Each structure stands twice: as C-alpha cells, then as structure tokens.
C-alpha cells in the first residue's frame, strides 16, 4: 500500500516535472551548415574547399508575460581559425499597446527584405552580391528598434532603429551612434493563392563617408584578408526598395509554390566631396538582384538569381570603378522540413575600370540542417 502510494507519488512527480520542463525550458535550436566549394564569390564569407558556413546555436524564450529574449551565437571557421560570434542577443516587448514593439540589444537590422532573416532560411548558399557589398552579407548591430503595426487590413508597419554602426564605419573617430534606419513595409494578398510585400528602407550612416585614404588600394585589400563581416563599401546614405511575391496553388504551400523577390539599393555619400571630381569618383553606387525559386514537389526546389553591385577600389589619385555581376542557379533537395542539400552554380563577373573583366565559375555543394527548436519562418 505504502509502496504503491510512493511509486504513484514519484510517478506523478516525474510526470509533472517533465511537463514543467517543456514549458519553462528555452527553445534551443542548432543549425549545421557545411559545404564544398570550387572557386570563390566576391566579398564572400565562404572560401574555397571544404568549410563550415553559418553554424548557429539559438536559444529563445518568453522571459515573462512582458518580454521575450533571444540569443544566437554563430560559430564560423576559416582555415585554422574558429570564430565565435554573437549575432543576436536581444530582448523584445510583448505587451505594449497600439501595435508597438521595442527591441533592444544586438539584432539583425530590418533594412531590406532579406536582412532580418536568418541565413539558414535562404534559398541560395550566399546572400546576393548587393548584400555582400553594402551590408557585409547581413547587418547586425547593437542598438534599439521601435516599430508599429497599424490596425488596418493592409499590412502597414513602420520601424526605426538606432545602432552603434561599428561594422559600417569607415572613419577613425566614429560617432557613438553611427547608424539610423527607418523603414516601411506594406503587404497584402492578391487572392487565396498569392501574396505580396513591399518595403522601403533608408539607412543613414554617420561614419560611412570615406574622407581619409591611408595609401593606395588600402580600401579593398583590407577586406580581402579577414572575414570581418563589415560592409565592403560604405557611404552616408543607403536607400533600399524590395518587393516579394509568393504563390501556391489555392495557397497550399505543401506541394508546390513560387517565390519571386527583387531588391534595389542605392548608396551615396561614399567619399568626401573634395574627391567628387576625380576620375571614377564613386558616388551613387547601386546594386540589385532579382530571384525566383520554384518548389515543384515537397522535396525538390530550383531557383535562379541574377544580381549586380557597383563598388570601387583605389584612392583619390586612382579610383577604379568596379561592377560585380553574378548569375546563380541552384537546385535543392529537402529530406524533410529540417534538412536541405543544395547544389549551386554561379557565374561571377568582376569588371574593374582599369583591367579587363574576370569571369569565374563557382560551384557549391552545401547542406543546411537544423535540430531542436525550429523557429517559425518569416514571409
């Protein structure tokens, strides 16, 4: 009798603690990303040969009924070096009225369409050349964000950010708050089967303008060696426009669906006005990409992407205009919702004003797999 009672008590204790654990434990998720690559894309984080890409460890939970917290660390290895990066460490409000939301800490900026999404959800093995040139692939920073969603049937969201701007800085004594960002997102459905989202972004970079040049070619050679995750090219103002359209038959995304996306970016105030009249002086650099990904059954998808980005090298005495173009073709197999194996071919062309253009073929074979908690995906 006593024994029975004891075992019952222990049993119920264990059962209830197991239940409590699932409730109070943070959501822990791991992303594994590995690849083999032949060749290298410009301003890229992935180097030739075998390598690990964006290996992520994410933990998140509601802190209480008013705050949510999330921590994402990224482990990257380049040759013999292993880097541990803190990509996200933020708190966010859950209970502000009027559709208001405030986030503080380190987080991915809301600029553009792709930037606030985690890399493992991408359809291609690397961010478009526009992102690699102007945003360091994906721009995360320390700061605060406030946003508001309006109570309308059309999705209207307005957000502002103030960020330290360290990774976007091109000057020695940078302002403490270097980057301000404002963006507007609109979106709606055309019908049951298709939806769209349109965004406009403006990023003001107080430290973006390059006024002092140390010596010849310092600007680009700096970024070739280390994977600093800083933007390759900066300027005072970065403007962005993005448009995404998704379609699935009857809106049932399980069997097949199509995603079309395009983004345009314009960077100005790149170098000090005193250099404005120099030959090939970089001002108004633009970049864009268009992409289409079609999932033709639950396990297979294929996509194509074309992008261009203008940049420059050299110093006032010898500015060189650069134009990178990139054509990507990819095919991906999903073992399940949690694992992807992707083959991607890129034709990369690098046109520098003082050289003849270089063309390269880059081939990547990559896996991206996740285990543990799997956060919901954004549109």
């Amino acid at each position: 009798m006593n024994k029975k009672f004891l075992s019952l008590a222990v049993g119920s204790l264990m059962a209830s603690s197991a239940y409590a654990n699932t409730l109070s434990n943070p959501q822990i998720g791991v992303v594994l990303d590995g690849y083999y690559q032949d060749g290298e894309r410009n301003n890229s984080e992935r180097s030739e040969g075998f390598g690990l890409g964006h290996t992520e460890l994410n933990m998140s939970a509601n802190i209480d009924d008013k705050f949510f917290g999330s921590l994402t660390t990224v482990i990257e290895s380049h040759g013999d070096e292993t880097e541990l990066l803190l990509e996200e460490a933020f708190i966010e409000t859950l209970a502000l009225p009027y559709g208001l939301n405030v986030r503080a800490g380190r987080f991915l900026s809301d600029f553009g369409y792709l930037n606030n999404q985690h890399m493992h959800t991408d359809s291609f093995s690397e961010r478009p050349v526009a992102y690699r040139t102007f945003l360091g692939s994906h721009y995360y920073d320390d700061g605060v964000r406030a946003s508001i969603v309006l109570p309308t049937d059309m999705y209207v969201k307005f957000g502002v950010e103030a960020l330290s701007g360290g990774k976007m800085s091109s000057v020695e004594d940078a302002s403490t708050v270097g980057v301000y960002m404002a963006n507007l997102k609109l979106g709606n459905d055309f019908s049951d089967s298709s939806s769209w989202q349109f965004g406009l972004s403006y990023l003001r970079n107080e430290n973006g303008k390059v006024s002092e040049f140390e010596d010849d070619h310092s600007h680009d050679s700096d970024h070739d060696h280390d994977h600093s995750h800083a933007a390759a090219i900066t300027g005072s103002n970065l403007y962005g426009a993005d448009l995404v359209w998704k379609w699935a038959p009857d809106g049932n995304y399980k069997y097949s669906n199509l995603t079309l996306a395009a983004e345009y970016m314009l960077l100005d105030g790149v170098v000090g006005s005193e250099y404005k009249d120099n030959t090939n002086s970089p001002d108004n650099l633009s970049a864009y990409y268009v992409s289409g990904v079609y999932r033709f059954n639950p396990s297979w998808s294929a996509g194509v992407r074309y992008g261009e980005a203008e940049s420059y090298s050299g110093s006032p005495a010898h500015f060189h205009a650069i134009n990178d173009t990139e054509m990507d073709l990819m095919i991906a197999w999903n073992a399940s919702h949690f694992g992807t194996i992707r083959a991607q071919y890129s034709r990369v062309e690098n046109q520098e004003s003082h050289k003849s253009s270089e063309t390269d073929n880059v081939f990547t074979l990559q896996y991206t797999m996740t285990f543990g908690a799997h956060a919901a995906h954004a549109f």
Partner: protein
Amino acid sequence: MHSKLTFSKYSLAMIAAGAAIISSPTFALNIFVCEPEWEALLTSHAPNATIYSATTAKQDPHYVQARPSLIAKMRQADMAMCSGAELEVGWLPMLQARSSNRAVQNGAPSMIYASDFIGMLDTHDHVDRSMGDIHAAGNPHVQFAANQMISLSHVITERLKNIDPDNVPLYQENGSKFRTHWQQKMNEWSEKAAPLRGKQVVGYHETYRYLYDWLGMKQVADLEPKPGVSPTTSHLQSLTKLDANTFDVIVYSSHQNQRPANWLHEFTDKPIIQLPLTVSKGQRLDEMVDQVIDDLLDVLVTPEPEAP
C-alpha cells in the same frame, strides 16, 4: 468652484464618450482563427463577431506562410483560436510576434488553443524528428473530436463573456443553444454511425484520429511512411502487400494529392473516400460531421442493405 465644475463636466463627457465607445451596439469582436473549423464553431457562439480564418479548406495547416495580410489581421484581433499542439508551430509564433498584439500572445485568456481542452490522443514522452512530424502534445487534428465539442463550447462561452462583458447574455444563450443542439446531434450520430464500428481504414496522415476513436473505427496503415512525410514509391509498394481482409477503404483529405490513394486503389481494388479536412465555406461544424459520417456510410455501408 467654477473650474471644478468644468472639470467634472469634462470628465463626465469623457466617461460618456468612453461608455459610448465600449457599449456601442456596432462594437463587434474581431476574432482570428487559424483554421475554418474554429470559424464555424465561433460563429455559432458569437454570431455578431467578425471572424477571419487564416487558412482555407484547401490548405494544409502545417504549411502556411506568415504572410503580411495575416499579421495585419492578427494585429486587429480581440481574440484568437487555433488547434494548438504545435500544428501551427511553423507560422503562428511569427504572427504573434510580428502583430505586437497583447490579446493574441500565449497565456492571454483571449488566445485559445482547442487542444488544451480536448483529451489528447497519441501523446509522446519522447519525440525525435526521425519519427517524422509528430507532436509531443498529441495528434493536433482535434476538429473531429465531436464527442468533446460540448466541453470546448463551455470554454469558449466563458472566454467570450470575459472578453466582451457587455454581451454576456448573448454568449450565454448562444452557448447553451449550441450545446443542446450538439447533444441532439450526438445522439443522432451515434445511432446513425453504428454500422461504421469496427471498420478499418488505410489513411493519408492521421487527420481523422479523433473521428475514428469516437466512431470505433481504426486506421491500420498510412499512405505516409511517417507522419508529415510524403508517400514514397517504396512505402506504397509495401502497402500493396497488406492483407486485403485487414482494411475496408482508403481515405484521404480534400487538400491532399489523390495520386497515392488512386495508386493503392488500382492495386487493391479497395474503394476510396475523399473526406473534408474542415468545414466548407459557410458550413456549420455539425454539418461537417454529418457530411463525414454520410460519406463514410455511402461507401462502407450502403451496398449491404442493413438499415435499422
């Protein structure tokens, strides 16, 4: 004295204006539901409410995009209802976070998960993704747990009264009307569906787990090799080796690809039934149950005239 008077006049006006806003007869609850079945259930309980369903009968609720229009609808919701048990885990948390709406966050009384109030089947202590897309909290397709809708109706009535206290009598009346009607239908169904007891099914996903449990039927095999994993040729091949006496019918849902079912049908000559995943547009929940039972009876029972 004078200033005091104007102040009280002003505050009176404010109170009156506030009261007018709150109790104005045009005030209608805005409700967001994840699946159409909860729209049907809530329409019976709150006929004045504006209800928006995130998915249609043709969409697999596991695979939904957290699209902007849904965030916009979520933003305006006074209340939300979903199946829960991780069915919507791939998109609902994104909507909750992006909507910045307190009313739809987990733990708020205005965020209802049906599976919190249903006796869940197939709960698991240990879940591993190698087992396919299964949920520790149990099978989330609770819209067919007809025998538990009355207790769910009690919960909904209480929550509605809580959220919209001005219309308590309305919710009270509609709730009890729903439950009385549902009880009548339950008696009718249990008599009508008696011949279905013991019938065995090859299904496509465990969508009708609660229905079969209630009606005494059994799903003996699945066209999916593992929950959520699409049928493979090798798995279908293995199903053709099933003893023909072990099942009566092949069942799939309206939103699913019908090829795997057809394929098995050609090999085994067993009849196929397409059952609805949820209510059709404007259909009531009891009409959906009527339809499902009729569809099953049509194929499984009518050929042998055994009418009571």
